[in-house]
């Protein structure tokens, strides 16, 4: 045992260099103490006895190219020297990571494969710093990312902590746009059933009018959740006799539901008060009334609208008129440079 230890130690002392082979097959000689700074290489040397000669060079991971290896060895050569101050090390690190983004990504990946954690931390923070303060478009350009997100995923509402009426308006327009996109998708994928309250409501209505009994489980669920709706549906069935009339009323109710949704959006914009959900709930319950909005509900909506107008510190009718008159122009502006500036500001 003692003799074996001597045998192992002696070659290392005689040979301060080890052999490394990169993925392209090239082999080079490196100072052992520098290479040992990499945990992976250290393991290969100590546990497997590799690297002592050219014929048994250490095979490095695929992600380590000769250029990247050179950079990593420069990093190790600096940091394995004892006695350097933290300030010196920090200064070196700052200069070290000044490289183009592509090389920085390659270096991060290679350092990770060699388990060189300090360098991984350094490079991943550098990448994070590149991303900070950038818009999605800028990030896409810098890192050559594909522009494959759907329009719906991009149209997330902007933050409105400043209570800016224009941002509020923009959020409403975004909501409208998202709705249009959703309807478009629904037309394309008629067979796909989405778990949306509106969708379920329409389906329930159609199922009831057509007289089809779904599977007992579904019927049971519907019964438990919407007792009021069931009563109203019953009334409607009693009041109608002709299929053509039923079809017409389905359309009317469809429009009514859409109209109700629009009203719900407006209420949602006016306040975050506790009445928001109450209104929404009630609207769905009253969704199948075919003579328009419930008078009591309409009164409450008007009250909310008045409150909203007061909070905007402007007269509501004038506001609406302004919106209608400039709606077309504004809509065009939103998705040209002005819209981009909003998004950039948000980012």
């Amino acid at each position, binding site marked *: 045992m003692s003799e074996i230890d001597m045998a192992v130690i002696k070659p290392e002392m005689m040979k301060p260099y080890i052999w490394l082979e990169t993925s392209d097959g090239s082999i080079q000689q490196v100072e052992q103490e520098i290479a040992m700074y990499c945990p992976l290489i250290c393991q290969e040397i100590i546990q497997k006895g590799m690297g002592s000669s050219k014929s048994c060079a250490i095979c490095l991971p695929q992600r380590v190219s000769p250029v990247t290896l050179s950079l990593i060895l420069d990093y190790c050569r600096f940091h394995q020297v004892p006695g350097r101050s933290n300030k010196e090390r920090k200064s070196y690190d700052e200069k070290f990571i000044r490289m183009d983004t592509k090389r920085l990504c390659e270096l991060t990946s290679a350092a990770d494969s060699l388990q060189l954690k300090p360098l991984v931390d350094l490079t991943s923070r550098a990448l994070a710093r590149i991303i900070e303060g950038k818009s*999605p478009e800028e990030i896409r350009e810098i890192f050559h990312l594909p522009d494959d997100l759907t329009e719906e995923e991009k149209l997330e509402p902007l933050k409105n902590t400043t209570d800016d009426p224009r941002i509020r308006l923009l959020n409403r327009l975004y909501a409208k746009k998202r709705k249009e996109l959703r309807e478009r998708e629904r037309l394309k994928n008629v067979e796909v059933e989405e778990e949306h309250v509106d969708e379920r409501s329409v389906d329930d209505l159609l199922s009831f009018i057509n007289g089809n009994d779904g599977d007992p489980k579904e019927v049971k669920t519907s019964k438990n959740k919407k007792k009021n709706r069931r009563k109203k549906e019953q009334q409607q069935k009693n009041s109608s006799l002709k299929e053509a009339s039923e079809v017409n009323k389905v359309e009317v109710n469809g429009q009514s539901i859409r109209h109700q949704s629009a009203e719900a959006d407006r209420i949602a914009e006016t306040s975050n008060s506790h009445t*928001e959900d109450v209104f929404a709930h009630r609207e769905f319950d009253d969704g199948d009334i075919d003579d328009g909005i419930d008078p009591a509900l309409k009164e409450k909506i008007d009250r909310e609208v008045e409150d909203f107008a007061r909070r905007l510190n402007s007269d509501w009718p004038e506001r609406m008129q302004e919106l209608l008159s400039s709606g077309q122009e504004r809509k065009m502006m939103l998705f040209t440079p002005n819209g981009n500036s909003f998004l950039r500001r948000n*980012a």
Partner: protein
Amino acid sequence: MEQPPDTTTNLFDHLSKELLYTILDHLNDDPFARKSLSQSCKSFHALEATHRTSLKPRRLEFLLPKTLHRYRSISHLDLTLCPCVDDATLKSLSLAWHSSLRSIDLSKSRLFSHVGLSALAVNCTCLVEIDLSNRPDLTDLAAKAIAEAVNLERLCLGRCKGITDLGIGCVAVRCSRLRHVGLRWCIRVTDFGVGLIAIKCKEIRSLDLSYLPITEKCLHHILQLEHLEDLVLEHCLGIEDHGLATLQASCKSMKMLNLSKCQNIGHIGIASLTSGAHNLEKLILSSSLSVTTDLAKCLQSFPRLRSVKLDSCLGTKSGLKAIGNLGASLKELNLSKCVGVTDENLPFLVQTHKDLEKLDITCCHTITHASISSLTNSCLRITSLRMESCSLVSREGFLFIGRCQLLEELDVTDTEIDDQGLQSISRCTKLSCLKLGICLMITDDGLKHIASSCSKLKHLDLYRSSRITDEGIVAAALGCPSLEVVNIAYNNNITDTSLESFSKCQKLELLKSEGALVFHQRVSQILLPSVSISRCWT
């Protein structure tokens, strides 16, 4: 030189998913960056969703099925910005995140009932933390529903005035792993309920029983908890010296005791409560009793005492002096609004507690520059000094403050500090919070001194400091790029020029400018949307 970009290769293809998660973690301070990254391409949109574990939606609509579907691994859910959470919502989210949800904050939600809580408790078997504060309408049915979350470790029921001993009993019997319980203002919970908690939940580490109608009867059980570290008994008027004298138990593990506003407890009661508590580090006695030599003797028993709060107490001359003779060396001392603090006893205090790091002498109206001189000579490690409304400290007194080079927080609101004082204070280059409200002697010159030296400043308060103009604000904005909170309310000399300069402060979160002559529309154009502008004149 940067090479020509290779437009066909996604640079992030080189990086493993773990590395991408690491980069996302480095972006945690910047929610905009995470958002931008998630919106750059489809794979990052998915990556951000799988990696996100905490969620704080701004509107209830964000909890629609789309969000529930997108984020599959939410463990911390903060609903404090969603007042309209109801039972149906709780049920939906408990089903969506049934295997991941560990913590939920419902302290600002008003519409749910015990039905929603029951769904939450039954479905989310990993739930360990829940905050139901501010729901005076909840009853014992809600507490019983909560009790079904048998893995709970942290429960906050502050201001749930409808919950009684019965509900607390249900929780105590079933949630035996509780460690942190908050029952502040649960005014229908008595000794019985609290006693059950103490008997059944043996892992308790912190207990907040403020404003409860409890007596020493439950304290007997509480003090037998072997792991109890923090005990808050603020305004528990049913606890008196007479009852405390009969206590036999002692709690060796206690580190923090809060007896604020307990006017019926004196030094005898404190001695009983803390007998055997040799590890006590923090004692809060705000608005409770007179600081006497007897109290100081009582505090001699705690060699590890680090923090004492005596704000709004009545201090006797000898009592405050006796605080200086404690065996322990204090790091934190609060004498705010403490009658009796004078130039006779404060210098003695600070000379004997040289390790002091935080001192609060707000509204100690009788001290002068002599105390400040003594303080800055003795306590060189001080990091926080609050001396709002110390109106007798002359301008010379503030020159001494510059000696404290480790100072991070300074509050000199409503004092006689002038530009020379600010010049001296600018030597404290580690300053991160500076409050100069109602400082009528300071001008732009003083503010420029601060701006040129204190680049780490995060909080700047110039409320009603009426001689400050745009010139000083611009200098501050340029010299302190890390500003997060700025208050320039009611400063008539500040205009849009100041606001334009703040657009350089990327981390600005809150700008208070009530009564300032700025224009709302320009504010929106200049500053980031995250800046909160309140009541600007337009």
